[in-house]
Each structure stands twice: as C-alpha cells, then as structure tokens.
C-alpha cells in the first residue's frame, strides 16, 4: 500500500517536472528551438520504421490471405453455378477464350471466366467476376449464368466495403440475394419494391441501399455485355486436365 502511494507521488512529480520543462521551453523559445533537421529526421525514421513493420507483416500475411481468397473464389464459383461437377478457367487471349496462357505471361494480367461443366462434360454455366464502383469502394461480384438462355444461376459478393447496415444488405439481405438465384433473365432491370410489373428480368432493389443494389445490377449487365460476344463465338473444348484445373483459379 505504502509502496503504491510512493509510486503515485513519483508519477505526479514527474508530471510537474515535465510541465515546468515545457513552460521554460516556451519562455525561452528561441535558443531551445529544435532544429529542422531533427524534425525531419524523427518523422523519416518513424515513417521508415512504420513502413518496415507493415512490409514485414504483409510478407507474412499476404500468402495466407491469397490462399484464403483463392479458396473463397473456388467455393463461390460452385455456389453461383449450382449443379456443376467441375469448372475450368479460361483466359481472354487476343479476344478469344483459351484454357492456357501464352508462354511467360503473368496470370494476373488476363481477364478470365470460369466455365462449369456437368457430369457428362457439357457446358452448363459460366461464372464471371467483375468489380465496379459501389457507394464506398469497388464491389467485386461473381455471378453464374447460362450462356444459351442468358438466365442467371446465382450471384455472390466477393468483396465490398459498403456501409454497414445499409449497403452491406447486398450480401446480407437474403431476399435480395435470392432473386439472383431464382433464374432472372438478362439484362437485369432494377425496380423499387412493389413497383415491378412482373417482368422476368426485374430485381427488387433494397430500400436505403439503392446505389449499392443498382451497382450490383449494373456490374452484372456490363459484364454480360462485354463477355457475350466472346462467349457466343463458342467455348473451346475442355482441356485434358480438367480436374486439376480447378486447383487454383
């Protein structure tokens, strides 16, 4: 107990000493001014240390995050293409779909689609992921559709920073999400709840999150507009190593 109060006293004294120090510094400001070099050096060192720390942690966490994202993407493809046995990744090389990349090319530089096949090897759906601006930041959407009928088979938000409680309903409000799994026709048309005319391509938007829901619908329409001419040229035969292709998309 005694020890403790001693400690307190010392701390209080510390504070007073420091205070009087800074008071003195203000009184005689000219001679005690800290040199510009020291200011710059302090910030530079602090910045370098902070940067170093972030880089170190990033080196450590990036592989884990990437692995997790790849797994999530794989799960997402199966989710938006119900009834698919396996899928292959096709890259857009010179405006044509190709299951393999040109030699020495980096995988991340190419746009891609995921083509799902049923147990007999027939194409049963194509999943496309695309990101565009939402309300806060880019929304990453993956959706599956049937290239022949144009009907959607599912939609999943891969990444979004939409407002918690409002914009995040684009993936938390199941009434909204389920509409994309109900096989709507494309291009989609966003309508206010209750204002729809029963058209097969209508999606009820979310009250209070109009911009976010519109963004999702727009992303899907834009992606289809971009990919439809390419998909219409036909999808190449499945590569021989169909099973291993699904390892890391």
């Amino acid at each position, binding site marked *: 107990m005694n020890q403790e109060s001693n400690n*307190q006293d010392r*701390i*209080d004294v*510390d*504070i*007073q000493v*420091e*205070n009087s120090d*800074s008071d003195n*510094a203000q009184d005689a400001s000219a001679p005690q001014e*800290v040199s510009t070099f*020291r*200011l710059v050096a*302090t*910030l530079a060192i*602090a*910045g370098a240390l*902070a940067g170093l*720390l*972030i880089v170190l*942690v*990033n080196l*450590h*966490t990036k592989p*884990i*995050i990437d692995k*997790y994202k790849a797994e999530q993407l794989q799960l997402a493809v199966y989710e938006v293409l119900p009834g698919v046995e396996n899928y292959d990744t096709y890259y857009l090389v010179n405006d044509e779909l190709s299951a393999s990349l040109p030699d020495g090319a980096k995988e991340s530089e190419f746009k891609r689609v995921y083509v799902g096949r049923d147990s007999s090897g027939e194409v049963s759906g194509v999943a496309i992921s695309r990101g565009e601006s939402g309300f*806060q930041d880019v929304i990453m959407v993956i959706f599956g559709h049937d290239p022949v009928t144009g009907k959607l088979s599912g939609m999943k938000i891969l990444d*979004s*920073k*939409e*407002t*918690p*409680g*409002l914009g*995040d309903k684009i993936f938390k409000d199941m009434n909204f999400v389920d509409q994309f799994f109900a096989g709507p026709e494309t291009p989609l048309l966003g309508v206010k709840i209750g204002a729809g005319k029963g058209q097969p391509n209508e999606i009820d938007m979310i*009250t*209070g999150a109009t911009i976010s829901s519109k963004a999702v619908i727009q992303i899907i329409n834009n992606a289809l507009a971009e990919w439809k001419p390419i998909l219409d040229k036909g999808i190449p035969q499945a590569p021989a190593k169909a099973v291993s292709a699904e390892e890391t998309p």
Partner: protein
Amino acid sequence: MRTTTPTQDFVRGIWKENPVLVQMLGLCPALAVTNSVANALAMSGATFFVMSCSSVLISTCKRFIPHEVRISSYILVIATFVTLADMLLQAYAPVQHKELGAFIALIVVNCMILGRQETFSSKNNPFRSLLDAVGTGIGFTIALVMMGGFREILGTGSFLGVSLFGPNFEPWVIMVLPAGGFLTLGFILLAMGVIEQRKKVKDDQVTEVLS
C-alpha cells in the same frame, strides 16, 4: 495541472469524461456504424485495440518525439496499428474481417484516439496511459452500444439480431439511416443534459443548506 491517481485515470473516461457523450470526440464512427448493436461492438473492439497499442507506444517513445511534429508522429503510429490490425485480421480471422471490413479503415480518422495521445499519453507513463486508454475505450463502447441498441430496436425491431416484437412490427427505417444516428445522438445528449442539470440543482441546494 491537476494531478490524478491511476484509478481516476481509468474511471474518468468511462462516464464523467465519456469520449462521445461528454467530450464529443469520435462522433464519426459513433454516427456512422451504430445502426446495430453488433456493428457497434465490432467498432468498439477494433478501436479499443488500436487505442491501447498506440497509447502504450506513444507514452514509451514520448521523449524522442519533438513537440513540433508530435501530431504527425501520433497519426503515423495510429495508422500503422490500424494497417497491422487490418492485415492480421484478414489473415487469421477472415470471417470477422469480413464483418468488420469497412470499420477498420475508419479507425484512423477517430479523433478520440488522437485526443488521448495529445492530452494524456504524451505526458504520462505507459502504465497510466494504458489505464486511460482502457477506460476511454470502455466509455466509447458504452456510448456506441447505447446508440446501437436504441437504433437497432427501433430501426429493425431486434436486439443483436434477435427479433423483439414479432413479424407485425413496422421498422422505423429512418433509425438505421444516417439521420437516425443524429436523432439518437441528439436525444441521448438531451437526456445527459437533463440529468446533469438536475444534479447541479441538487448540489446547489446542498451548498445552500450548508451555508
């Protein structure tokens, strides 16, 4: 300067100098993410972590930081911790990270954290700075959960996701919208003001009787 005991450092931030309700700091997250209790808790937890770490580090390094560049240094420290928290959560708790996602970046702009560094950590030792940060963090949590509870109950008819009033309840959508945040904060501050005033009247009466 008024000196305080460690206990006072800890208790002060919880109610008497509550960061949101009395000091009016950290209003951005208090208004932006309190439309449900779960969001409020998540935001409080993340802020709590960043504030505690920053307070300890800054009070440890205070002697090396020149007075002129202290604010920039504090922001640097806070931003670093926020980035680290973001990356570590993403790697080791991806599910929670997805829930917290939008909040984490918001922590940097929380002036409450910067305020604690400027008014307390830069003048006190690490132990007391930690006490101060923990106390303030609890105060922040109380304020946010209060707002979150009020808004979630009225705005969606549930508490922590559990429905309270059954399917016939018509939610007040405005309460989960930004306007609801301002309304809620206004009413809570009004209540605080009334309580404060009554207390003052009482104290005055006591002093009158005594004199």
